[in-house]
Every structure is written in C-alpha cells, then in structure tokens.
C-alpha cells in the first residue's frame, strides 16, 4: 500500500500549503535519504572573474 508521503514531501520543502514559490529540489538534493542529508551541498553556481 506504499507509505504516507507527507514526511518525504516536507523533507524536500515541497509542502504545497506553504505557498512558497516553485523551486527545483534536485539541484540542491544532498542525498536520497533524509538520514544522510545532514548538511547542505553546494549547488551549481558561477562566479564571474
């Protein structure tokens, strides 16, 4: 029967009730598992010279 996805959705900051603007989750995904997502990971960025 699967699992209740609410904690998964919240862990990805995708809660639609929050009414925050759309954001790309995969660009900053630290790890597939909440337990191994202890810290942020540096996303793509460009620093002009």
């Amino acid at each position, binding site marked *: 029967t699967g699992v209740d996805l609410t904690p998964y959705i919240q862990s990805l900051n995708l809660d639609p009730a929050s009414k925050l603007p759309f954001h*790309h989750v995969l660009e900053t995904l630290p790890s597939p598992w909440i337990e191994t997502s202890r810290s942020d990971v540096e996303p793509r960025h460009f620093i002009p010279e």
Partner: protein
Amino acid sequence: SRTELLCLVFTEWITLVQKIEVDHYIVKAFIKQLVDTHVIDTHEKFVEFFEASISLSVDAFKESDPTSDVFVSIDALAKFFVQLLIYLDFTEESRKDFSSLVLTTFVLNMTNDHKENGKDFNERPYFRFLSILLCEWEKLSCHNFIRVKDQTCRCELIEFDKDFYSIFASFMRVYQPLAFPCFAFAWVTLLSHRMVLPVLLRMKEEGGWEKLNLLFIDLFRFIDSYSRVGDVPDSISVLYKGLLRVFLGVANDVPEYFVENHYTLLNNLPASYLQLKNIILSAFPKKLQFPNPYSADIDMDVLEICKKVPQVAYDPVQDLGTLKKPVDSYLRIPSSSLMRTINSNVNALKDLKKEHGVGFDEIAVNVKLINAIVLHIGIEAATEALNTTKNAIFNKNSSYFTLLLGLISNGSPSAKYHIIEAIVCQLRYPNAQTHFFNFVICTMFFTDSLWDGNGAEVQELILRCLLEKLFVFKPHPWGVVVTFTDLLKNKDTMELPFIKQSSEIQSVFKSL
C-alpha cells in the same frame, strides 16, 4: 618500483592542487611535463599511472584518521582527470575514448578491490571520485566553458559536454546494483546527484531521458529481483524509500519526464510497486490547471484540456513489431481475421514469465505487447478525434473501441486483467487519451450487452484495477479518481453481486 615512483609523482600533484587553483598556469605546465617526460605519454603508461593513483588514494582513505580530511588524494585524482581533458593533445584520440579508458581503469580497480575485500569493500572513496568528477566538470563547463582561455579547446569541450554525461551514465550501468550490491547505496546516491540527475533531465533532446530510463530500469530490476509482496529485506526497503524520494523530486522539477516516459517506465516497473506507479501516472505538465478530481460534477466532454493530445517520448508502435500492420489495418477497417491475428499474438507467450504482482506470480500473456497496443490505440484515437468529430471516435462502434473490446472478450482471464490494467494506466492527468479511455471504461462497465452475459467478470476486473490504484497511499492519478467516481455515481454499482458477496469489499466501497 615503478609504482612507487608513479605514486611520488601523483603525490606531487596532490600537493600542487592543495596550494593553487586549477586555473593556474602551473597546472598546465605540470601536465605537459608529465607527457614530455614520458610518464603518461602512452595508454599503457597512463593506465599504470592512474592505477597507482587510485590505489594510493583508496589506501589513503582507508588509513586516514576518519576525523581528518580523508578525501584529499581522491579529490586530487578527480581534478587531475578533468584537467587532462583540457590540456592533453586530442588530435589522434578523442576525449570520448580517453574518458572511457579512464573510467574503465576506475571500474576495473573497483572490481578488484571488491573481489579482494568482499563485504569489507568500502564504496565511499569510489563514490567520492565520481562525485568530485561531476562537481569539477560542472565548475569547468559553467557558462559554456568560459574559464577555458584557448578558444579551440573551448569549442571542443562544448561539443564534448553532452558526451561526458552520456559516458558517465553508460558507466553507471556497469556498476549497477545487480552487478555490485556492495555499491548499491552509493549508486542510488550518484543517480540522484545534483550534478547529474538535473543535467540528464535537461538533456531530453540529447538522449538524456533515454539514459535515465535505462538507469531507473536497472534499479527497478534490482529491487524487483529481491523483493516479494510481504517479503522485503530491510536494505531493499531503504533503497526503495530513497528511490521514492528521488521520484518525488523528479515529479516536482521535471514532471514532463514522467508524463512522456510513463510507458517505458511502467513496462519495467515491478508490478507490485503500486505507489511508484501512481507517482509516475499522477505527473502532469507544469502549470497545467485542472479541476479537483473529487468534484462531483466533472465532465470531460466539456473540459478544453481534455482535447489536448499528450506527448510521448517513445512511440509504442516500435514495440508492435509484426503486429503493427494488422493493428493499423484493423483501426482503418475492422475485420474478424485481423482480430484473430492480433489476439493470438497477445495470448501467446512461449514460456510462463515470473512477475511478482498483486495476486499473481506468473503471467502467460505478452504484457509488453498489450501495453503497446493499448497506448497505440489511445494515441491514434486521441489524434483522430482532433481531425474528425469526437462522436466518430467516442463510439462503441468505432474501431478503436471494438479492438479493445475484442481483445478483452477473446482473451484469457489473465489477458483480460492485463488489458484492463493497461487501459486504467492511461487514466492520467486530463488530456485526450485520458478522456478516450474514460469513455472506454465507462462504456464497458455500463453496457452489459457487449459481453454475452459475462459482463460481471469485466466489471469486477475494472473495479479491481481502479481500486488497486486507489487503496494505496496518495498520489492517485486524476483520471482514475474521476473514472472511479463515474462508476460509483451509478447506484447499481453497489448492487453488483461480487461487491455484495463480501462484507469487506462492501464496506470499502461504501466508505469510498
């Protein structure tokens, strides 16, 4: 020994990149000297050097104090690879071939380590190498390789960029979980890596989606091989949860990937993974607005969005094989002989196939062919409805409907189930195909005269297939909810004998 000498050289490199940026001219000079002094000027010597460097790096990781920076050497190695792609001479050998050589050497090293150490193999340094490789490549390739001063080299690297990811994805298939269970969790982490998954999702036109399909399918095969309904080892369960989270990310960021690849993914998804199936089928194009499926008065006939034909990344007609001609001929001019040909192919499967579904462990029909036929009919019907009147297609005498009817009427119980299941899987977000299949399901359910007295069997299968999608945790595909509501709206549905016979089923339907 030669290996020790090579390790010394590599140590020099590690020291160098700890002190300076890779943009520094000294890096170029260092690499040039490596070639000029015949350290890495041939394939043979390069492989020797790289093997020595990997061994040193992995040993350094294993022997380092875990609280210190254990990845210094391995990070330097990944940087080295990327810098070679800039500064080596690629007039006689392509970057593609060179990258394949490097990754081959890497894989073989990993294989040997795994063979020697078995369950004591540690995936982390190998994961780290690949992760840093991705990060370094991303840093280099930003803004069309603007950091690369040599314009010729810059153009070549721009050209090579898509190949880089293609080769990376291909090698991921080499160390997939079925081959290296010891690397399974690192593999899933790599698949969802922020520097690779979004890139492959953006590379739709350059084959990124095809590569991604293959990778997801590799993972499906692994979890399917070692899980049964009611018997899932803990580690597989954890892998599955990781995959679930990644799928939610994909559904959020690029739902179009699921929308257009649902056919390919579902053909390879384990039959019992109902929630994953629902996540794929519930995806809809970004910014599409449509009514709440639980509204009482949804009428697909009047919804403008139900006239839009959805895109598919892979045309199922390619899977029809020799049946393409009979199916297309039937759709033009139905005939009983064509129906017999199609039926015999669908119901014929040389050997029983193991398939761990809900309520079955084997199948005796060609499910892939069934899925292809059903989707092909859906695509043709939806497209044709745009060109002619809707009533010509949404009609129980239309060839699109009668072909499905014939397949179900003449099929074995197993075939009936799989055909209806394939139809229900096309009840997705509001679009022309969902609309057509909603018509098919409702007509088949409510028109007893179609079935020569065997209507109840079909009704039960329809309700089963719909219920299988609804009794799992959300999400639920829009089309499934709307169609199920359409069936339940009719009071006679609750009076069906197979519902009344079981108090359990009756209470489920009552609550629904």
